[in-house]
């Protein structure tokens, strides 16, 4: 007897194959492959002395404590029992072969050189999850919830809210640390919409990336034990967002839809030892958290491409009307962008727009300037006019003249947009009191 190494495939040959097998030979083989597989055996070559009921020479196959047959003969011979291409499949992971040859292989005084046989076996995965494969006294327990086959074995799993027990088959409610990280999904009380089990301490945590806001939508039916007078004395469904309690629910009135404005939500479900309510189911979705609609602080502020809704990572750009500066604190800004943060707030507060001031205009040597509108008003669009100390100086300006306007850039510019201050040039040859002869 030769145990066959537990490979997942192999060959078995009659003694001396492919030479004729010896007389008076008994050989047995025990094929043993790992659990989770079944054995499949076929004869690639079969040539044994034929006889009625394979009385003389034969191969006997057994598996799962059953006889799978006794074979002998040659292909096409009338007597004997040739196996042909038949596949012998075990239910378990063992198979036993026995070969027997008698003292002669004569036929009418002629020795016939029967070659024997060449068998090929292979391990074939056993789909333990297929109910048909589970035979009646299968000691293996069934998976209570879900069975997952894989080559060479299988494993069980449980519905959400349940945990596989140490026997790897049964599921017990386990909802104390359910974690949901998908952008949307469903969660419900165990067995929903069947009545939920007693003594639950469920904690469903939804943890999404920052910047998302979770929206909870309760589906029908919604049914949690409650009391007419006392608020949720028996079973409670609590919803918390970032530790802040959003609500505690029970009874038959669905909470409908809840916008949590948070990327982290905990749903706690506590039940007492009794009750037949059908529980609850939530379809949660998420959307980028929203930020408050930006509101300009004054009438000179322009929010570019105002959107109806601003969500996480959205931004808005603020500018000012011409002639106004963006001011934040006391700082003048060249530009301003606010980004909606993960907590639904803007990363910086709205600036304001202050009118551009040009400051005191440049002094004019030997001259002066005067405010055309309001004295001392150096705001944007204010106008000043330069003049020289006439008649002793005369003004020399660019082509833009002597009137200057406070420009959006905060500089005083003439009509041509030039900033160059005029000049007062001396007036020659014009004495105040020129010599005039009277007497002639």
């Amino acid at each position, binding site marked *: 007897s030769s145990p066959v190494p537990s490979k997942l495939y192999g060959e078995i040959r009659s003694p001396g194959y492919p030479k004729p097998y010896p007389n008076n030979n008994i050989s047995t083989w025990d094929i043993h492959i790992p659990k989770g597989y079944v054995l499949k055996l076929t004869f690639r070559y079969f040539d044994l002395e034929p006889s009625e009921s394979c009385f003389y020479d034969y191969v006997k196959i057994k598996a799962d404590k059953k006889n799978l047959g006794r074979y002998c003969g040659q292909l096409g011979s009338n007597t004997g029992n040739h196996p042909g291409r038949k596949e012998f499949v075990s239910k378990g992971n063992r198979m036993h072969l026995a070969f027997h040859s008698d003292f002669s292989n004569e036929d009418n005084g002629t020795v016939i050189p029967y070659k024997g046989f060449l068998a090929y076996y292979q391990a074939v995965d056993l789909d333990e999850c297929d109910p048909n494969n589970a035979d009646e006294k299968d000691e293996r327990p069934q998976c209570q919830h879900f069975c997952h086959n894989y080559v060479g074995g299988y494993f069980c799993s449980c519905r959400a809210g349940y945990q596989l027990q140490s026997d790897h088959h049964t599921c017990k409610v386990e909802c104390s640390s359910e974690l949901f990280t998908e952008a949307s999904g469903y969660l419900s009380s165990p067995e929903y919409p069947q009545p939920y089990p007693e003594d639950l301490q469920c904690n469903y945590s939804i943890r999404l990336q920052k910047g998302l806001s979770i929206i909870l939508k309760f589906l029908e039916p919604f049914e949690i034990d409650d009391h007419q007078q006392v608020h949720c004395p028996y079973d409670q469904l609590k919803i918390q967002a970032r530790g802040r309690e959003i609500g505690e629910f029970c009874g038959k009135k669905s909470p409908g839809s809840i916008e949590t404005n948070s990327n982290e939500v905990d749903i706690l479900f506590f039940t007492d030892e009794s009750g037949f309510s059908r529980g609850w189911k939530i379809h949660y979705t998420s959307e980028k958290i929203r930020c408050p609609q930006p509101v300009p602080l004054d009438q000179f502020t322009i929010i570019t491409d105002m959107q109806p809704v601003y969500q996480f990572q959205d931004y808005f750009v603020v500018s000012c009307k011409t002639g106004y500066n963006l001011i934040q604190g006391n700082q003048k800004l060249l530009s301003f962008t606010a980004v909606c943060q993960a907590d639904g707030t803007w990363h910086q507060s709205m600036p304001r727009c202050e009118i551009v001031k040009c400051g005191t205009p440049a002094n004019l040597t030997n001259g002066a300037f005067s405010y055309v509108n309001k004295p001392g008003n150096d705001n944007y669009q204010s106008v000043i006019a330069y003049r020289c100390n006439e008649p*002793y100086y005369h003004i020399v300006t660019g082509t833009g003249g002597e009137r200057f306007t406070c420009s959006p850039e905060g500089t005083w510019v003439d009509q041509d947009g030039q900033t160059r201050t005029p000049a007062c040039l*001396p007036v020659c*040859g*014009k*004495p105040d009191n020129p010599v005039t002869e009277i007497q002639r």
Partner: protein
Amino acid sequence: ILGGKRAALGSFPWQALTHIHGRGGGALLGDRWILTAAHTILPKGAVGSNGDLEQLAQEANVFLGHTSVEELHRMGNHPVRRIFIHPDYNPNDEYNFNGDIALMELKHPVTLGPTLLPICLPDSANTTFYRDGHMGYVSGFGVEKNFISNELKYVSLPSIARDTCRRWLLSKGTGKRMVFSENMFCAGFPRVIQDTCQGDSGSVFTVLDAQSGRWVATGIVSWGIGCGKGYGFYTKIINYLDWIKGIVRED
């Protein structure tokens, strides 16, 4: 100034009083240039004046803005940054005042007003002012009847035709040796005592340009033979306009 009158405040607001090698005059151009005669800075035959213009600029005193010498001194002088002497001027040639023109740049521009105003330069094309008999005014703080004046005086004099000047000059002993160049003109009377004199050098001979209504400097008091005894000789400014503008505009 001989035979002249006291100048009223504001009549000759361009008049400068200078003290360099003695008293002299000048005229304000723009708000920072003084036009004067080169010999007030580099006198003829002055021994030892090595003509170090930087040194002279440091020592020069220029007063502006009044007709009283006392007042001018009280108001304080205007320091001089740079001096430009015309290259044709030769301090060693006693009888040749050709190129007797200089510019002094003030360190600080002055603020103009009724008593301080620049004189205009003539238009290079307008030689009318040098025609025989064209009246002009000359002001100065120079000598009058052997006394240096404490007041600004002025006198009105006619420009004289060049031939007349030349003949007059030749009739004078010393005059024979004097150079009367194209860059000069003479003005005054042969027998009336109205003239400029020592101390007036550098002051300008001005005329009222009827067209523009402006007073224009046509000459600079330069030299003469005695005072009040005939014509005075003036540097012809119109011949130096490019030189003047080259310096003033360069700045």
